[in-house]
């Protein structure tokens, strides 16, 4: 049963991608319907898979030769992420019906989205590290193609190429990890390594651990690779919601969570993970404070929240990090899609040109506020419970300075979230333009997500038993929802965090009186607006590469005689080496 469902979850979107492409751009209605049908069917298959979880390998395809066995496992972590990918994927596809209405080359758009959904499901469901690398690259390719979807816009193309190059760095790390695993164990199946990390030479294991950290940081846009995600916001908004908030950027967190039992013994690894998460969370929270582009604010907050998840893994809180991932993918997809509805009707992404949209877009305002409250960590919404779990894990197992920084960024999160909501929906209107509320298909996508943001924390108990039952090596305890809630409510950390969040809100409320503080921190503002110099570093690397290429170009004379001379010199060198070495 589980094996058929896995084939369906991965295969249905791919078949759909092919059919949408074959339908042709002249039959747009057929394309919309096909895309919705296949993505929703895949979502249903993934949900059905939730009831068939196990920790054993369910599919074992013999790929022959060095490729070994292509194995798929339906354990809790994998199935949960497959559900997130396919369900949020189908909601994003439904949203696209209105958002992408009238766009050219819809076939390319839907084919890439469906190809991505299948690839993402494959990435999390496989237990073969080489196959995971293939799926990893498929998601990177789709991400690139969809960021650069408006390929007549140079900014979009540049953003796409930037994302592709930076995530490739991670891909190389993953490939190296796969080859090291094969050289040590003779198979690409990583579950054996997770069950018993001792089978691998400690030095090799250390290399793999840090390689995986680089791969995860590049994919999840963590420090020092965080620069690609804000530029990826040139993509159509449903893509930002699906790929750059809810699924693909979580692949890095998934990788760290998956390998945590194997790597936690590596000296220095958990500290490095904590540092990466902490720096990402705090830096991007500050950048979100000064950004004026609605989608960029959301992108910075995505990096910041992913930083929380990475931090939680570093502190040993795999359950907390995955629960926050779950909450985050719901409320951030909601925020992005609601922002998409706003952008679609206002026609700009600059928040300074919005304002007082709330009256004209009541439903969008309602769901956006729900998403924002969840992002800020206000009680009862799902973001509150999961963020408290992360912070509690940090207080119990992490260094106290890291915890302090995470608390600070929780306060900053509340501050920039309210700034964003205020600038978009309240305050003074900046234009007399009439805007319309979300359209029908958009509402169909927004309302389930809003309900999810309100209620998904009720699943905390079943979620923990799902992970507990099928992940023997991760040492996750099965607890009921009530126990989770009591634990959060009884912990003093919760009230500290709430106090910090409230401070953030008060700071926003009293912002006129804080002019002096803002003045004192203007150097920080300037630095944040320049993305703390990371863009300069990127530009420097690009300049260096191009300069080196220009210099090396002179060696390519294209003259036959020079080439022959080069061949001859190399030939003589080889002969000499052979003679000297006997």
């Amino acid at each position, binding site marked *: 049963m589980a094996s058929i469902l896995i084939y369906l979850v991965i295969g249905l979107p791919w078949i759909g991608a092919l059919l949408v492409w074959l339908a042709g751009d002249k039959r747009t209605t057929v394309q919309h319907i096909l895309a919705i049908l296949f993505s929703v069917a895949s979502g249903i298959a993934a949900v059905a898979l939730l009831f068939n979880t196990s920790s054993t390998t369910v599919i074992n395809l013999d790929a022959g030769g060095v490729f070994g066995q292509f194995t798929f496992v339906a354990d809790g972590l994998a199935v949960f992420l497959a559900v997130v990918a396919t369900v949020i994927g189908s909601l994003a596809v439904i949203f696209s019906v209105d958002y992408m209405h009238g766009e050219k080359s819809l076939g390319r758009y839907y084919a890439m989205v469906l190809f991505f959904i299948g690839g993402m499901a494959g990435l999390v469901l496989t237990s073969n590290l080489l196959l995971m690398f293939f799926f990893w690259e498929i998601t990177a390719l789709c991400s690139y193609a969809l960021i650069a979807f408006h390929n007549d816009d140079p900014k979009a193309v540049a953003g796409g190429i930037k994302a592709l190059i930076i995530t490739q760095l991670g891909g190389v790390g993953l490939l190296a990890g796969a080859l090291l695993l094969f050289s040590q164990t003779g198979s690409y199946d990583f579950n054996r390594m997770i069950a018993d990390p001792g089978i691998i030479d400690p030095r090799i294991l250390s290399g793999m651990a840090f390689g995986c950290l680089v791969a995860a940081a590049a994919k999840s846009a963590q420090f020092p690779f965080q620069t690609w995600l804000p530029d990826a916001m040139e993509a159509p908004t449903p893509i930002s919601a699906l790929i750059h908030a809810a699924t693909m950027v979580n692949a890095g967190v998934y990788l760290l969570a998956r390998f945590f039992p194997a790597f936690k013994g590596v000296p220095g690894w958990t500290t490095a993970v904590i540092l990466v998460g902490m720096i990402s969370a705090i830096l991007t929270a500050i950048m979100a404070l000064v950004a004026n582009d609605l989608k960029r604010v959301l992108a910075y907050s995505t990096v910041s929240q992913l930083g929380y998840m990475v931090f939680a893994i570093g502190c040993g809180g795999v359950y907390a990090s995955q629960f926050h991932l779950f909450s985050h993918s719901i409320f951030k997809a909601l925020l992005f899609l609601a922002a998409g509805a706003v952008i679609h009707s206002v026609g700009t992404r600059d928040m300074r040109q919005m304002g007082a949209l709330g009256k004209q877009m009541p439903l969008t305002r309602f769901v956006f506020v729900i998403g924002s409250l969840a992002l800020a960590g206000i009680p009862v919404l799902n973001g509150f419970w999961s963020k408290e779990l992360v912070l509690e894990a940090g207080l119990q197992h992490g260094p106290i300075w890291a915890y302090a920084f995470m608390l600070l960024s929780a306060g900053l999160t509340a501050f920039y979230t309210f700034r964003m909501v205020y600038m978009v929906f309240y305050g003074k209107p900046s234009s007399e333009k009439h805007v319309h509320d979300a359209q029908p298909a958009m509402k169909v996508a927004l309302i389930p997500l809003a309900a999810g943001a309100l209620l998904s924390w009720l699943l905390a108990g079943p979620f923990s038993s799902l992970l507990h039952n099928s992940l023997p090596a991760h040492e996750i305890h099965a607890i009921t929802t009530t126990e989770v809630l009591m634990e959060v409510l009884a912990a003093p950390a919760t009230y500290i965090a709430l106090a910090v969040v409230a401070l953030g809100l008060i700071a926003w409320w009293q912002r006129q009186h804080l002019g002096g503080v803002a003045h004192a921190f203007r150097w920080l503002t300037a630095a944040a607006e320049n993305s703390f110099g990371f863009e300069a570093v990127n530009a420097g690397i690009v300049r260096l590469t191009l300069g080196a290429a220009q210099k090396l170009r002179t060696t390519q004379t*294209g*003259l*036959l*005689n020079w080439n*022959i*001379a080069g061949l*001859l010199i190399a030939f003589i060198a080889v002969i000499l080496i052979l003679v000297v070495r006997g």
Partner: protein
Amino acid sequence: MTTIPYIDMLTVMIVFGIGLYTLLITRNLIKVVIALQILVKAGMIALVLAGRINGQVMTGQSIALTVIVADTIVAVIALALAVQVKKHHGTVDLDKLRNLKG
């Protein structure tokens, strides 16, 4: 232990050297084709020689025959291209044929 027939070895080296030297100094497309032919001839002799040293005379000679066939086709096509190049560009000087260089 088979002794290596030095005179054959020397022939291979000399013929190969002539071909390489021609490639090194010529700029004429026709001469380049001829030089490549000379290089391949050296390769054929080397194949026959290798067969003899290995004790697999038949294999060496049959591969050499195959190379002759393939090499003839290469020569014919290369010369035909050279004729077309001359027709289009009016020259067979390689230094002047640089349109493809970026």
